[in-house]
């Protein structure tokens, strides 16, 4: 039953050594019954998404990065709500915005004729002057995941630059650790918290006397230091009292939860035509501010270097290439490329806001062909 050799209709060159990769060893296939059970859960989530999702249903759905992830009793999340989760998969325990929240399940590139006159794109449209990049414009892309509600945002995002430390606090979250292994109990703020060690960071969850469940993620400091910092904070409902944040912690600017939300993102690439990841190239990205830069540091302090972009705190992250990221005016900016940090910062400081009707944008090609797929024809 298991395929072990080259597949059915291959017309690959028989002398191509890469054909050896087509040999798939005999391995165990998980029972198909589990696939059907999972599919049943997904169906329930889809139905509820389609009807707008009301309270009291048996299963719910989360949008994680634009993808609906239905939740069931065996995989509990906030019940009866459709909402957008954080990057880490955290979701509100009480989603009062759930009724207004829609998720298309399918990401899509916005056609140029649509974004050129749309205020959501006008807010994002940014550009690097040709004299700054020295590269031709490879293309522009505007993308949406179709998510209409703001994901859970942190109640506070704290950092120190030396030593590199990050701490993000999230309030009113659904039980985040159910099903996780390796949980430990620790004492903090006069109660017992669950501690989940993860690669590069620690997560803690506890419930305040007013019933609000909090989750904290910290990196660059040990458990005792996190607990000591948390013990100092004044938590009021779902907020952190800014004056209670102890020195030397700095506080990242948080998104304005009351402002209108759009998940549209803006991307411009500079470099030789065609997508050539290994070729020199520069990528400028702009999107809504959801998670301030300190939340990334709280996931893995050792992965980031602090810097400044026009006076704004910024981080440099290197993994597959390097990226400088900073937050400004409720938007999140990133400039990525194979250049070193100083050059990327220099480029970042030359980013300018432009009109979507700017002749330079009009002359630039589309980075990707826009999706002409309907949701029913798209992959999940």
């Amino acid at each position, binding site marked *: 039953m298991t395929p072990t050799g080259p597949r059915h*209709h291959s017309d690959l060159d028989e002398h191509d050594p890469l054909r050896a990769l087509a040999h*798939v060893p005999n*391995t165990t296939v998980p029972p198909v019954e589990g696939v059907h059970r999972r599919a049943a859960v997904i169906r329930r989530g889809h139905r509820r998404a389609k009807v707008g999702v009301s309270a009291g249903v048996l299963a719910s759905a989360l949008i994680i990065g634009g993808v609906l992830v239905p939740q069931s009793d065996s995989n509990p999340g906030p019940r009866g709500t459709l909402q957008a989760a954080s990057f*880490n998969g955290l979701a509100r325990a009480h989603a009062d915005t759930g009724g207004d929240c829609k998720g298309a399940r399918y990401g899509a590139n916005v056609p140029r004729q649509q974004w050129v006159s749309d205020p959501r794109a006008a807010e994002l449209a940014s550009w690097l002057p040709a004299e700054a990049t020295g590269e031709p414009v490879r293309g522009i892309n505007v993308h949406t995941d179709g998510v209409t509600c703001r994901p859970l945002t942190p109640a506070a995002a704290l950092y120190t630059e030396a030593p590199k430390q990050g701490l993000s606090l999230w309030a009113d979250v659904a039980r985040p650790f159910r099903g996780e292994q390796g949980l430990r109990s620790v004492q903090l703020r006069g109660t017992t918290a669950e501690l989940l060690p993860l*690669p590069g960071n620690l997560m803690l969850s506890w419930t305040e006397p007013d019933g609000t469940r909090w989750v904290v993620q910290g990196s660059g400091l040990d458990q005792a230091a996190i607990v000591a910092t948390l013990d100092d904070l004044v938590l009021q409902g779902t907020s952190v009292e800014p004056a209670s944040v102890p020195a030397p912690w700095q506080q990242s600017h948080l998104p304005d939860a009351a402002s209108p939300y759009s998940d549209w993102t803006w991307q411009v690439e500079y470099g030789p035509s065609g997508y050539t990841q290994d070729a020199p190239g520069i990528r400028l990205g702009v999107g809504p501010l959801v998670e301030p830069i300190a939340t990334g540091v709280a996931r893995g302090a050792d992965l980031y270097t602090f810097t400044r972009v026009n006076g704004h705190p910024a981080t440099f992250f290197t*993994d597959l290439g390097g990226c400088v990221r900073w937050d400004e005016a409720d938007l999140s900016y990133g400039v990525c490329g194979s250049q070193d940090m100083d050059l990327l910062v220099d480029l970042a400081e030359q980013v300018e806001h432009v009109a979507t009707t700017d002749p330079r944008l009009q002359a630039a090609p589309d980075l990707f062909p826009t999706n002409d797929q309907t949701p029913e024809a798209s*992959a999940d």
Partner: protein
Amino acid sequence: MSNSPDEPSELVFDDWYRRELPRVRQALTLATGDPALAEEATAEAFARAVVHWPRLRTTDSPAGWVYTTALNQVRRSWRRTLLEHRHARRHRDQPASAPELPDPALWRAVAELPERARTAIALRYIADLTEIEVAAAMNISRGTVATTLSRARTTLAARLQTAAPTSFRTPASEDSR
């Protein structure tokens, strides 16, 4: 397991699942460098395929849909946080371990390529998707797929030449598919 009228034809889906899963999982393992993440994304993609099976079974490439969905899962999974760290660790240490293969050196060489090249090779050679299908799965143009594969072959040829003389070449006919 019984079928209701609106449920997929389980006999067809189940056979297809058992036949295709190892290959999808293997391709995702090479693309992500992370067997656990590949397993997870593959399982989720097949579950979603069940939901869409009445439509998928009539399409030319249900496997292509599964690869696209699995890659989307990888890109947007909440485990992306862990993936960040795994990427960083892999850069510091070594690529993901190779499964049983006739040519483990080849697997390791591919695993050391950049993510986009790994993914393109995995979809082209393990999944045996056409370049058009690879382009659709990766949301890039067919020309970019061809360029990526061509450059990857050149890189691999250089890397493998010293280890094991081989007939590595970049067949023009293959690029035209």
